[in-house]
């Protein structure tokens, strides 16, 4: 995307890595709950950051199909890791959420409503692929006739600090999905991390007035053309180091034609229908409600939790589930993600983050399944 399509914003600035501390402090001082990457239980997860010291400095990851391991980097990069098991979906569309609560009134009716919004989130360290995933969720959950209040309650008023990717992993393919490794819009601030030769710097661009205002309060200096060019090159080089590639061409057509493909039986023989891929995917949004009452029946609540199209009950109708075989459930997932999503929501449901490949216990890789479906169709 051409950077010229952005509104004219201040020229890029340069921050020392130590300024991340001031950035987190400034966000907190403005009342934001700052969410960002941090190490927990052997993985880089997304959690509340109380200071920049919580960031995963010097942590890298090794990924492959069915594999995710932390490793020590030989530098102090804060964002030198590719996607972990969580995504911003965990913050904006949490695994379990209260939808509404109600209490019995004296006349026997029920009065209540949805939970009021309590926090404003700053999302720090959003990769371009994950920024694209947030835009996908926006279209799905706010683009219809009624916006989903659980999502908007957490999404509205976000401050987004993107970090361009200079460190793609072996399961990444954002460049073939057109969602990364760089980004030109959708953020308040965008950082590009430069670590070499003992130097640790961030090139910073503001995308909104609020971003510019925050930047103005940080110990920044003007970035000269040379360093801006180095940042651009680092991102450009990342585009060439993706471990995976998604086949070009119309995937909606390929998948619509593949509904009867024998290859689905081949995947089904490997797939455990565990649903891990749907849990880690930053755009998989399906949920199931759970209604509860207290013992008196005078207080009722509706909660909802993530659900998965791999779950047998997912398509349950009186009389039985529509999709009983593993074959039909994998077909639903892949076809929705890469095919029918376009017709439903105007874009692909996949941003190429590679999470579903790394977290599949069977090492199933959607880019290869697409290649196999294409080959089966052609043969």
């Amino acid at each position, binding site marked *: 995307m051409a950077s010229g399509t952005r509104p004219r914003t201040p020229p890029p600035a340069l921050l020392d890595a130590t300024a991340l501390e001031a950035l987190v402090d400034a966000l907190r001082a403005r009342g934001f709950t700052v969410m960002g990457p941090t190490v927990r239980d052997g993985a880089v997860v997304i959690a509340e950051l109380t200071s920049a010291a919580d960031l995963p400095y010097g942590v890298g990851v090794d990924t492959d199909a069915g594999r995710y391991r932390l490793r020590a980097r030989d530098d102090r990069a804060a964002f030198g890791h590719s996607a972990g098991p969580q995504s911003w979906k965990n913050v904006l569309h949490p695994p379990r959420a209260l939808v509404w609560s109600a209490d019995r009134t004296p006349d026997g009716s029920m009065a209540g409503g949805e939970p009021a919004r309590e926090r404003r989130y700053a999302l720090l360290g959003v990769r371009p692929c994950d920024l694209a995933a947030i835009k996908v969720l926006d279209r799905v959950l706010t683009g219809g006739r009624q916006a989903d209040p659980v999502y908007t309650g957490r999404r509205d008023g976000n401050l987004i600090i993107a970090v361009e990717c200079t460190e793609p992993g072996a399961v990444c393919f954002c460049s073939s999905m057109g969602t990364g490794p760089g980004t030109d819009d959708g953020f308040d601030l965008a950082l590009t991390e430069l670590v070499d030769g003992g130097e640790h710097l961030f090139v910073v661009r503001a995308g909104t007035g609020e971003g510019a205002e925050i930047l103005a309060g940080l110990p920044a200096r003007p970035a000269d053309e040379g360093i801006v060019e180095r940042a651009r090159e680092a991102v450009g080089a990342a585009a060439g180091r993706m471990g995976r590639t998604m086949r070009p061409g119309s995937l909606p057509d390929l998948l619509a034609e593949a509904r009867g493909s024998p290859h689905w039986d081949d995947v089904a023989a490997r797939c455990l229908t565990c649903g891990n891929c749907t849990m880690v995917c930053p755009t998989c949004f399906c949920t199931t409600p759970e209604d509860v009452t207290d013992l008196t029946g005078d207080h009722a609540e509706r909660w909802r939790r993530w659900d998965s199209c791999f779950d047998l009950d997912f398509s349950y109708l009186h009389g039985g589930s529509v999709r*009983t075989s593993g074959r039909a459930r994998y077909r639903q997932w892949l076809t929705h993600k890469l095919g029918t999503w376009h017709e439903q929501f105007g874009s692909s449901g996949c941003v190429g983050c590679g999470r579903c490949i790394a977290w599949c216990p069977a090492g199933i890789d959607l880019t290869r399944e697409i290649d196999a479906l294409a080959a089966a169709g052609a043969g």
Partner: protein
Amino acid sequence: MDTVAHAVVPGPAFPVPYRVVARRAETADTVTMELANDDGPLDAFAPGQFAMLTAYGIGEVPISLSAVAVAGGRTRRLVHTVRAVGAVTRALCGAAPGAVIGVRGPYGTAWDLAAAAGRDVVIVAGGIGLAPVRPLVHAVLADRSRFGDVALLVGARTPADLVFRDDLRRWAGAGAQVAVTVDRPAGDWDGHVGVVPSLLPQARFDAGHAVAFVCGPEIMMRFTAEALIRAGVAPARVQISLERSMRCGCGWCGHCQLGPLLVCRDGPVVAYERVAHLLTVREL
């Protein structure tokens, strides 16, 4: 219970309380209920659209309107006909007058009755599928001169499962041909026996100029639509009402997909030609 203290605000996910003001048993497992909220908090429903009904503390399910009464663009009264098949529908069917039920809506697409103006109308319903077409029958008969021949073909598993018996008699006297069939006869049944499409030959309508509305189990809708098309009805003029698992009614939960359709948003009423190729794919 996992309870949190929090401020609440009104919003689209919160079911609005309506009170049960009338309840009539249709069959052993099916109840027609009238719900009222004099504030008319919900927008007007059109025939074919559905509401999400909440039995507090138990759950929420999609239920069509079996009659539509609109005053000033607001919904003060709702009529639903519910067949008890599981926890939520059992609770709804058990709600006595005075009980409070949560309602959200209107959701989904409506029957396109305008497409039938000046044409013959064929309405085919199986089982509880008669409920979602009932407001359509009301609308057709209320404006009878706008349409040509009107045929209503109804199927039930057994005579005891037949809903809206009084209505069927009334409609037959109000300008509609009404034919009823059962899968399995019982008692003193001396009517037609067989699947619903087998009623088609005895209905009088000009297939080339007819619009058809079909609601019932998916397999019944497929066979009926195919029979109508064979008889000469244009595939684009056959409307059906789809059923899929629906947990929210407004496109947030992802359950109701049928290929490229989100049935709660793009349906439940769709032109048969739009989905015919999807309905033949097993487990889609």
